[in-house]
């Protein structure tokens, strides 16, 4: 492992150790936050007991669904928009300002229209992520050199074949930037809306535990979310590094 990686681990480890000391010494009282080793123990117990399995499955499946939709719709919309200049030009400024819109503001409206099921939460997470995917897909496709498009024509490739085998693979590293953002937004969208109003899920359970001073449930769930999002992001980063190294881009 590189020196930087060790420093990174040392920083995170140091913060955890500091929290541990502060908790054990009583500077942070038990009602505010249990010591880190207690949180890990509680998480272990929670997983073994299986009492949160329903909530975890609901959140993860909704997140995966929203992510899949954001990627599928975003990449296809990006590829189509790239070919439709007349449609893209008026939309570009909207994409640029899109993230100024607090998407969560639509959540109550979605509940009114679709009911208090999974759909409003998936929709919020999808809306948060899809534009990041579209923007990064467009960015990647904009960088495809003309000579590759000429090569595709010389090889007599169809437009669909050109997109799948030539332009999208070229745009791969840029797409990955959009994918990473979409993963983060999918988690934020689903868990955030569960916080606001829901009938289950990790966000709902955290909020419920918070209202009941149930630290033995709240903190392990927060840790669980941290582990899940760091793991997914870490895996994507490793993949990204490999892609970039192969192309001599780093």
């Amino acid at each position: 492992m590189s020196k930087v990686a060790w420093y990174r681990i040392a920083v995170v480890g140091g913060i955890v150790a500091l929290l541990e000391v502060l908790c054990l010494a009583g500077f942070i009282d038990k009602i505010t936050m249990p010591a880190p080793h207690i949180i890990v123990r509680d998480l272990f117990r929670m997983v073994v007991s299986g009492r949160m399995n329903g909530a975890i499955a609901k959140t993860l499946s909704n997140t995966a669904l929203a992510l899949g939709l954001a990627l599928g719709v975003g990449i296809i919309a990006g590829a189509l928009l790239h070919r439709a200049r007349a449609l893209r030009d008026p939309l570009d400024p909207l994409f640029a300002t899109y993230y100024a819109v607090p998407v969560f503001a639509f959540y109550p409206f979605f509940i009114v229209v679709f009911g208090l099921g999974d759909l409003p939460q998936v929709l919020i997470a999808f809306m948060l992520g899809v534009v990041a995917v579209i923007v990064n897909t467009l960015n990647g496709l904009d960088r495809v050199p003309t000579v590759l498009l000429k090569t595709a024509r010389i090889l007599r490739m169809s437009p669909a074949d050109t997109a799948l085998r030539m332009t999208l693979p070229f745009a791969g590293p840029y797409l990955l930037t959009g994918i990473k953002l979409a993963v983060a937004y999918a988690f934020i969208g689903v868990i955030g809306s569960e916080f606001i109003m829901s009938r289950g899920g990790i966000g709902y359970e955290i909020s419920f535990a918070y209202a009941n001073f149930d630290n033995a449930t709240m903190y392990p769930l927060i840790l669980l979310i941290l582990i899940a999002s760091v793991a997914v992001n870490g895996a994507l980063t490793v993949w990204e590094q490999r892609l970039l190294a192969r192309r001599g881009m780093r």
Partner: protein
Amino acid sequence: MTAQVRLENVGKTFMTGRPPAPLHAVGPIDFEIRKGEFFAVVGPSGCGKSTLLELIAGLTPPTEGTIEFEGTRVTGEAPEGIGVVFQEDASLAWLDVEGNIAFGLRRSNLDADEKKRRVRDVLKLVGLSDFATSYPAQLSGGMRQRVCIARTLVMQPRLILLDEPFGALDQQTRLLMGDEILRLWRETSATVFLITHALDEATMLADRIGVMSARPGRIIDVVETNWPRERDSRIVERPEFGSITARLWHTLRAESMKTIGRG
């Protein structure tokens, strides 16, 4: 020898600038490329050499005249049997060398073993056998250009168009690549059409050399070199080499002056 490519009265006018105004890029052009010959085109910069290549390759349709490849009209779509190597790096960064070369065979009906054999043969031909699993980013510019040449050769085209493929390479590498192109030309019996701005390169490689005028580009002279088919870069030592190159420059000098505004 029979004509493989025939251009009759071919012209191309682009709409360019703002507000759009017509720009007469090339034409009228009349000439033939004979089956199996090595034909080079030289011309001052901006005279429409690359446009001429794109017209023949079917990448852009002519605005006037007709282009025929093996008796069939070319109308803005690449005909089967033509391969192009461009000046810019067209290697596919996400595939290794083998993958790059096999890319051209993806849609062919050959069985897997035959495809593998062809890729292996072409790798050997361009001297990249030891780099089959390398990625383009790990190769030098000259090697990447050889990957593109190999990807074109593997499809066994009957006409190979080269658009200043050595433009980005240093002089020594260019001479050696010239040797390789001559060898490949002999071994594949394909017709080669080469665009270049280097007069010595054209003289060294070609059977016939077309000289283009300043824009709008026309063929104003066709020079026969009468080299033997068996030849390599050492041909530059022959006395005719100097006189042919001198004749090219004699025709081109006035045209080149025009392009820098001293016509």
